[in-house]
């Protein structure tokens, strides 16, 4: 049974470019959340989607956007990349009422 899958695993972008990160949740999981983890810090909440609707948004600028598709997969988009956007981007999925989120292995984004 596949876990949460994220693509790509690594990515290098130039300042000012945009990036799209992808996430496929565990089969049957309808909730997807995105987190940013900067080196030495804990994951910071970016977005949560449930049934294709945004349920929550963390303290991130409007350059960050996301969406969830009918098959519950999700994309995270970041425009006008800054050096400070370099981080590990994690996707997590869960069932309604489930307290333990299952994380993917993340996408390591490097902005140069």
């Amino acid at each position: 049974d596949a876990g949460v899958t994220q693509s790509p695993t690594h990515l290098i972008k130039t300042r000012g470019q945009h990036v799209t990160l992808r996430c496929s949740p565990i089969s049957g999981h309808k909730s997807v959340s995105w987190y940013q983890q900067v080196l030495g810090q804990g994951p910071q909440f970016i977005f949560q989607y449930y049934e294709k609707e945004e349920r929550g948004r963390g303290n991130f600028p409007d350059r960050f956007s996301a969406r969830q598709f009918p098959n519950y997969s999700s994309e995270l988009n970041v425009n006008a990349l800054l050096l400070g956007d370099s981080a590990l981007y994690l996707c997590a999925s869960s069932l309604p009422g489930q307290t333990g989120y299952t994380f993917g292995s993340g996408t390591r984004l490097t902005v140069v």
Partner: protein
Amino acid sequence: DQQVKQNSPSLSVQEGRISILNCDYTNSMFDYFLWYKKYPAEGPTFLISISSIKDKNEDGRFTVFLNKSAKHLSLHIVPSQPGDSAVYFCAAIGDSGGYQKVTFGTGTKLQVIP
């Protein structure tokens, strides 16, 4: 505003001994607390959770203790094994305007020495 804090960035423990990882929080409205374990190049793996109405939860070698009055929780690993060497994140779940938001601490790197 760091609502979940792990004040020890690292911890070294001898194999077979007890590892105690600590976490403090400021928001008394958190409903659940979780511990995650993270290896390099992998996503965090859920370890154990505790409801805010409990004071202890045990799962094999892992026990989490919650002291609500002190807004403090701890993870005990007994006995510690070299494979336990990883970064451990404390996390708290609370309702945030209609959705369950997870807030993570900064992590504690545990090294279990053989």
